[in-house]
């Protein structure tokens, strides 16, 4: 089966499913507003003290917050639900149902679940980015826009790959739920540009959990900080993460089939 068609089918099912619980839309909206509000309070506390934080102005940090929100919505609507389900499937042995289907298993486990209402965060994120952009009096050139978009997509792919790698560990270590908690904690660091962190943490946030690529670099694109070099590095890293995660997934899968037969 065509993987794109497959993904779209699951997407449709997910949307139909979630439409039944429309109250969740309002709950999600409220949650997004609460996180925007606390974010704004955090920013105003910071800028009550200083004019710039590590070289970033207030509207620039607002843009970072918007990207963080947007990417968080993507993680919670698509990446995390699928990976958590995968962990459950591995533990309960129900992954067999997936493996017996005539499609690429990695694609299947990655498109199974879809939390439609979490996309509210994506919308709210875009709104926040727009407001930040207006405050910056910026003009969005076509080149800049594509820089932003490609950085965003590559960041998303990297986050997915890291999640998949972490989840693949569940083939060996059963209790990995806490790893997803750890991941959430680290992702929260993306609320601020990674440049402010001490170097050891910055390295971790760049290469282990690519928050830097997922949030800071797209935000750099919006605030005229992005260089062609960092975009190229992002491309290289994306490819590396995709290949690595595919490899680890395969290895885990062969381990799983070996253990269950």
């Amino acid at each position: 089966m065509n993987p794109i068609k497959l993904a779209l089918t699951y997407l449709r099912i997910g949307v139909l499913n979630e439409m039944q619980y429309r109250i969740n839309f309002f709950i999600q909206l409220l949650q997004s507003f609460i996180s925007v509000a606390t974010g704004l309070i955090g920013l105003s506390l910071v800028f009550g003290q200083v004019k710039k934080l590590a070289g970033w102005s207030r509207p620039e940090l607002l843009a970072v917050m918007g990207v963080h929100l947007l990417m968080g919505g993507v993680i919670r609507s698509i990446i995390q639900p699928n990976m958590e389900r995968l962990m459950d499937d591995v533990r309960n042995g129900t992954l067999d149902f997936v493996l017996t289907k005539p499609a690429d298993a990695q694609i299947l486990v990655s498109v199974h679940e879809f939390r439609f209402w979490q996309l509210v965060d994506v919308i709210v994120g875009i709104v926040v980015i727009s407001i930040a952009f207006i405050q910056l009096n910026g003009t969005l050139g076509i080149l800049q826009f594509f820089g932003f978009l490609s950085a965003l997509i590559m960041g998303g792919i990297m986050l997915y790959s890291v999640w998949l790698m972490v989840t693949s560990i569940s083939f060996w270590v059963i209790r990995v739920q806490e790893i997803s908690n750890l991941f959430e904690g680290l992702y929260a660091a993306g609320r601020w540009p990674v440049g402010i962190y001490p170097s050891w943490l910055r390295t971790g946030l760049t290469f282990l959990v690519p928050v830097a690529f997922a949030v800071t670099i797209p935000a750099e694109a919006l605030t005229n900080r992005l260089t062609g070099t960092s975009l190229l590095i992002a491309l290289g890293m994306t490819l590396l993460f995709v290949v690595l995660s595919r490899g680890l997934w395969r290895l885990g899968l062969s381990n799983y089939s070996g253990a269950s037969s």
Partner: protein
Amino acid sequence: MRRYIDFYLATMRISILEQIQYSVANYFYMIGMITEPVIYLVVWTTIARQQGGTTGGYTVGAFAAYYIIWTLVRNMNIVFTPFGWEWRIREGQLSMMLMRPIHPIHSDVAFFAGWKFVVILLWLPLAAILSWIFKPTFDIRWMEVIVFSLAIWGAYLIRTMLLSLLGMITFWTTRVSAIFELYFGLELILSGRLVPMTLMPVWIQDLSNYLPFKWTFFFPIEALVGNLTDVQLWSGFGMQLLWIATGIFLLNIIWNFAIKQYSAVGG
């Protein structure tokens, strides 16, 4: 009384035995949680450095001390959640608890209290590592240590009461996650979890004086890392006791209604 002591000890023993089996999982959980204060710490020390070493009376080292102690207090603040109540009612576990000749809240308090001992033990090496990285400055008197070690348990009990009260809502309706989120948002701002309360605008500080939140976060931390007088220390602890008593009082009233509701609609 002896009966309750026996029950508490037995439950705490069970929970310690259980949680030791999950040390690794507990560690992952704690490490995941540590990123939050580290983020705040990095932001505020950056600001303090930009301003020549201090912000709002906090030096870089004082911020480090605040947020390192923060990690222990945060762990003490972990209690049975409203989501847990929802699950407990849905799965019928509450029915089994109600068949025992002991109040379910006692089970929760005892179980999490046992867990805390494991958490404190696991926290010590983490605190050592964080101290090595962030170089906190402490100026501690022995009275502060005494009040702090009482206040973290006070914080634990206040938060248990608050979240149990919140959990009672699930007896009537299950769609309450929005209310919980609102609560957690308020708590973040009004407790000292985000920043030391003294950095907050004055009106928020005033507001927080009339609410229980700051006694679960800011006060215990401040008791150890701040420069409170003995009178301030003990009156703060008195405030904690007051909030605990208020919590028990409210919980008793609402519990009766909740149980009436539960036994009317089934379990």
